[in-house]
């Protein structure tokens, strides 16, 4: 069964992504997780989302990670929490308890409906037109923010070189 294999793969890749010592390896495992998530989205009948997830999640974000790791450099910091350990374990146990509770409650599932798989363009362009505009503004803000942050670093370097 494909779904079980993909779900197990997602879990394995996610665990490898967070437990990898080197950041670059971690980013690559994250990309593989993203590809598997895209595959599952495709099987669920959402091919457009799968394509966006694959190109953005596995492509663009991975390139950004590699770029950032190259600039910032590898730095191995062990998995030692900045939070107090009892708090961490209490929240993990609480979360696991909640998950088990919801799984037990949701065992009687709704029947899986027939897939239509069409992204109704009218929803995106008419009902959620305002949200769509907001996304455009968000992307612009992100690009401007990155330009601001990175150009600032060049100025600092120039000033450091002069001084």
């Amino acid at each position, binding site marked *: 069964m494909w*779904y079980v294999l*993909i779900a197990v793969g997602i*879990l394995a890749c996610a665990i490898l*992504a*967070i437990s990898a010592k080197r950041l670059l390896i971690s980013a690559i495992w994250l990309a593989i997780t993203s590809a598997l998530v895209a595959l599952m989205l495709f099987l669920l009948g959402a091919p457009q989302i799968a394509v966006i997830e694959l190109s953005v999640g596995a492509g663009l974000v991975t390139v950004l990670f590699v770029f*950032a790791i190259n*600039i910032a450099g590898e*730095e191995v910091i062990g998995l030692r929490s900045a939070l107090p350990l009892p708090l961490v374990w209490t929240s993990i146990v609480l979360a696991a308890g909640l998950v088990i509770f919801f799984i037990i409650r949701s065992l009687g599932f709704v029947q*899986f409906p027939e897939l239509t798989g069409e992204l109704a363009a009218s929803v*995106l362009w008419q009902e959620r037109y305002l949200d769509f505009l907001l996304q455009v503004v968000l992307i612009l803000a992100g690009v401007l923010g990155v330009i601001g942050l990175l150009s600032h670093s060049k100025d600092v370097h120039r000033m450091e070189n002069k001084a």
Partner: protein
Amino acid sequence: MNLPIPFIVLLAVLSLAGTGFYCLLFTRNLIKVVVALQLIVKGVVLAFVLAGHLVQNESLAQTMAITVIVADTIVAVIGLALAVQIRLHTGSLDLKALSNLKR
């Protein structure tokens, strides 16, 4: 063993969110924090599409998922740029290097 498909997808969602939250609680590396956020948001996107199927409103769920992916990418970009800046200014990616108030 014949599990229903929504159940398996829900397990994938929970595993993504669980590993992401675990990493968010445990790690001190700024870039690892962005990795953890990415994992959580992947779970959220999967959950959106699953929820759209269960209530048979796929179009709305998919447009929501697009919005989430866009917002998540911007968060990743800004987070990584901030991490690079912090590395340049403090010389470390450690979260503890940021806290000047203690000690």
